[in-house]
């Protein structure tokens, strides 16, 4: 069934396209499958968000009873995190990383396909709770003992589905790390890899080390629910705080898993659209590694109010992690400084990322302080923070990646005016939806409530937030129109529509099955830039020209 030698016809003959996409092991097709699948889940979870916001716009229960409301915010969070953001970024990673490395595919192509297919199936399991008496309803964080005692099969489906999704992630991480270490083109040392590849590498290490802990916790929870276990339920001798420790030991690296690739995307886009190299490449690399390492030391800042954690330690480590993040911020700004800015849609989303993630980061540092956190824990302040970093950060990164790499993946450029309309409605809607939540949290509005009193004084801000949410939904319309219309009849993009610096632009759009006919020589982290502009024609010099001679056969042979 599986052949190993390349069929020369494989890239040119057309079988049934259903079979082709079902059986593909090509990282590019798998990347597209990831992205399409994740956007489907995005829409599903987005609809849930609209339901939530509609219910909360004014006091009183309008149409979602409490049980259904609980399912809505649980599924919204679970789907957005596990089935939209991470797979979407994974999809871009799958498509782009081998290209940026000059490799023909990922290290383990068939396992790559397995990693993908586990996702829609896991998602189906999670969602199918709705068909069998109610989906999981205990929040995406699944706190015990609520999850221990929840009736019905929805929570069990959530546990099992997440285990599948987690396993898929872990396999993907193995693939990415092996690919990055073993399949770089000649001349591409680690410190010449694009920053996007670095962020994918660190993300993969985080996934590899953090997700198994979640798996252990989920299995323990399943045992508690189904086989009479006593891990988390205090009524049988268990410890509910144990669940929080296990969950957040995974959960905190998880949020860095979500943000780092988006930071990588932004680090790719800013230099290209400022016509300047990225400022401080090495600092970026070390900052990313530092964030990865530190992310394992901060988990209990989600648990300050349990009374069971060492507050000074976790507060200190959390504040510390703001430093490498701040370094990145300054490096991005320095990249923009005095650049010839081109405000195309990818750049707009990248700039949106910078500003929105900054706000989210600031509210995060505020939350790192226990005196503040004790006041706003489990309020809308936290909801504001997480949406600024997840949505303003990662999702803006996903859209930036979409607009940036769509031409490479399809050979056609997305329409610019439609893209700008999408961006602006999205940006304004996003801020309208989530900025008021900071104030709501400070005013004491708890999260995960389906209703509130008209006397609380929260009504106006909730209404504003709901308007913003619907604006976000409306902004998706020009995006969808853009994507579909461009697929059908878009303007051809050519190999390198943005004048990029990295290797993915050195091949056709879309690339052939084996990615490259030939590779340009690699002497720096901007191999394409030097190919066009030549050595010594710009203010930059490729690094280590002398040391290159040993590892570049062409130079050694005196051909360069």
């Amino acid at each position, binding site marked *: *069934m599986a*052949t190993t030698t390349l069929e020369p016809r494989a890239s040119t003959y057309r079988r049934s396209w259903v079979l082709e996409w079902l059986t593909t092991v090509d990282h590019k097709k798998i990347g597209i499958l990831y992205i399409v699948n994740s956007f489907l889940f995005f829409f*599903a979870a987005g609809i849930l968000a609209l339901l939530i916001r509609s219910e909360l716009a004014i006091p009183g229960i309008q149409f979602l009873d409490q049980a*259904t409301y609980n399912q809505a915010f649980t599924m919204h969070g679970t789907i957005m995190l596990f089935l939209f953001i991470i797979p979407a970024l994974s999809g871009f990673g799958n498509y782009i990383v081998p290209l940026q490395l000059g490799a023909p595919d990922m290290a383990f192509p068939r396992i790559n396909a397995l990693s993908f297919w586990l996702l829609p199936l896991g998602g189906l399991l999670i969602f199918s709770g709705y068909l069998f008496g109610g989906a999981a309803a205990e929040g995406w964080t699944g706190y015990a003992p609520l999850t221990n005692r929840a009736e019905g099969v929805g929570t069990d489906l959530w546990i099992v589905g997440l285990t599948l999704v987690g396993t898929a992630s872990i396999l993907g991480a193995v693939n990415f790390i092996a690919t990055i270490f073993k399949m770089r083109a000649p001349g591409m040392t680690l410190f010449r890899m694009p920053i996007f590849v670095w962020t994918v590498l660190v993300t993969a290490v985080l996934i590899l080390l953090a997700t198994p802990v979640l798996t252990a916790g989920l299995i323990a929870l399943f045992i508690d629910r189904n086989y009479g276990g006593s891990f988390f339920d205090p009524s049988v001798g268990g410890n509910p705080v144990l669940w929080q420790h296990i969950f957040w030991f995974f959960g905190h690296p998880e949020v860095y898993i979500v943000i780092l690739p988006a930071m990588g995307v932004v680090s790719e886009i800013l230099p290209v659209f400022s016509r300047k190299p990225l400022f401080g490449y090495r600092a970026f690399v070390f900052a990313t590694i530092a964030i990865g390492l530190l992310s394992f030391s901060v988990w209990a800042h989600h648990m300050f109010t349990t009374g069971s954690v060492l507050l000074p330690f976790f507060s200190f480590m959390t504040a510390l992690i703001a430093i490498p993040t701040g370094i990145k911020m300054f490096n991005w700004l320095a990249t923009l400084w005095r650049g010839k800015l081109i405000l195309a849609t990818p750049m707009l989303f990248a700039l949106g990322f910078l500003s929105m993630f900054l706000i989210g980061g600031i509210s995060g540092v505020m939350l790192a302080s226990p005196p503040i956190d004790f006041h706003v824990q489990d309020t809308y302040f936290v909801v504001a923070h997480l949406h600024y970093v997840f949505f303003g950060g990662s999702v803006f990164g996903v859209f930036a990646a979409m607009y940036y790499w769509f031409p490479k993946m399809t050979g056609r450029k997305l329409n610019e005016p439609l893209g700008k309309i999408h961006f602006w409605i999205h940006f304004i809607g996003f801020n309208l939806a989530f900025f008021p939540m900071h104030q709501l949290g400070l005013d004491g509005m708890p999260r995960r409530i389906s209703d509130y009193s008209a006397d609380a004084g929260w009504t106006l801000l909730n209404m504003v937030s709901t308007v913003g949410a619907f604006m976000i939904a409306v902004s998706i319309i020009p995006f969808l129109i853009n994507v579909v219309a461009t*697929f*059908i009849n878009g303007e051809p993009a050519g190999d390198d529509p943005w004048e990029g610096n990295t290797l993915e632009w050195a091949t056709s759009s879309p690339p*052939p099955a084996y990615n490259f006919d030939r590779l340009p020589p690699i002497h720096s982290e901007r191999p394409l830039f030097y190919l066009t502009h030549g050595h010594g024609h710009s203010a930059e010099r490729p690094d280590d020209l002398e040391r290159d001679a040993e590892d570049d056969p062409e130079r050694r042979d005196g051909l360069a």
Partner: protein
Amino acid sequence: MPDTAIGFVLLGIGILVVLGVVFAISSRGGPASTAGSPPRGVHLPGPSFLPVVLSVAVALMGAGLAFRGEDQLANPFLAIPGLLVLVIGSIAWVRAANHEWREVEHGSHDDGPAH
């Protein structure tokens, strides 16, 4: 709104969106390719059903665990077919990988196996 209704609404919307995307992708046609064959030394594995098959098998087993009855380890109608398919699929996978390794060892040393 009852839970199942929401489920069906979401399913319905999902189906419509899927069909829309499918229409868009299929109307564009198959993958473009400008060159006939890859450079020497580049080895690409062939397509395979096994990833889908194994994913379905594991999902069946998972569903079996979730839908278990009282005093059962798992629901046998879901878990046993899932386990069978998993075992058979895994054997097929390992055999395919073995076959590819042997081709490398006994064929040219140009290229390596896929997984």
